[in-house]
């Protein structure tokens, strides 16, 4: 646990999403990977128009310009609650501006092959 960074976010969480409280898609998890679709932002309607995007949505797009991010990383960088980023990311996915790739489903997490890769990977990380 660390202390809060100095100051408060300029946009309160309940306004960052434009007043929307629930994501339009159910699968946004902390480890869902977000990436830009590559659709140009400045494109006419109906798809890919930045019009109507809350400022935080634009900030999320901007953050993804450097590469893909997990939802929780985007929340940390934008200093928004995870729940707000879930709403924003689902909206951007609806607008085909963002691709969202869900993490391994809980049923698959005890796959021995996956666990072995985690164990081997951790061992490889150790240095003398």
């Amino acid at each position: 646990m660390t202390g809060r960074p100095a100051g408060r976010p300029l946009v309160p969480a309940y306004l960052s999403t434009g007043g929307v409280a629930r994501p339009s898609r159910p699968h946004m998890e902390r480890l869902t990977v977000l990436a830009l679709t590559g659709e140009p932002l400045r494109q006419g309607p109906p798809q890919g128009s930045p019009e109507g995007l809350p400022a935080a949505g634009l900030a999320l797009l901007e953050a993804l310009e450097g590469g893909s991010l997990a939802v929780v990383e985007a929340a940390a960088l934008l200093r928004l609650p995870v729940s707000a980023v879930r709403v924003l990311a689902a909206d951007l996915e609806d607008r085909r501006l963002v691709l969202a790739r869900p993490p391994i489903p809980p049923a698959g997490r005890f796959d021995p092959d996956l666990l072995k890769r985690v164990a081997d990977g951790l061992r490889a990380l150790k240095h003398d």
Partner: protein
Amino acid sequence: MASAPSSTTSAPSGTTGAPGEKDRVHLPDTARDLVKILVAGPFGVGKTTLIGSVSEIRPLHTEEHLSEASAEVDDLAGVRDKTTTTVAIDFGRVSLPGGVVLYLFGTPGQERFRALWDDIAYGALGALVLVDSRRIDASFDVLGLVEESGLPYAVALNEFPDAPRHHGVERLRRALDLEADTPMVTCDARDANSSIDALLALVDHLLTRDPVEAR
């Protein structure tokens, strides 16, 4: 509406030092399977220290609203309430060879964090419970939460310099009321190799468990 923070790729405020490798938050192109392990324990037990010693990025944190984290975790209702308390949840990340990216979430153990706990624990491989042998009773709550959530776990005693040595492993196990097959290791959360060994104790435990249990 005021704009959100514009410099979204820089390190969060509060960190020091020149920008470097640890400030590159974006995922590597090789990232394929994202998994998480909870690093759980009471305040001050060394969760963030352990995460920081292993993480490839400077540990980040999210502000979590305790009142919002109900059964409906995606509901923002209540955030407007000024009395909502927030807690900072630290996390770090390690990209492993083979496309696996391991996230470590520092998770506080008090009972009042239960709903938040459930949300963070969803889909986790397991939990590494950090214990300070000078104050074992501070870890009872967190052990209760881990057990109730059904997450497999291992216990790591974070060795503080003034902690009593050789407390007696069996006595500690009894005091913590651990199952016979629950791994318990000692570690120095400041040391990367030592922290990795503690995580390995958990992952090896996951690999050797009865597969019938792993549901």
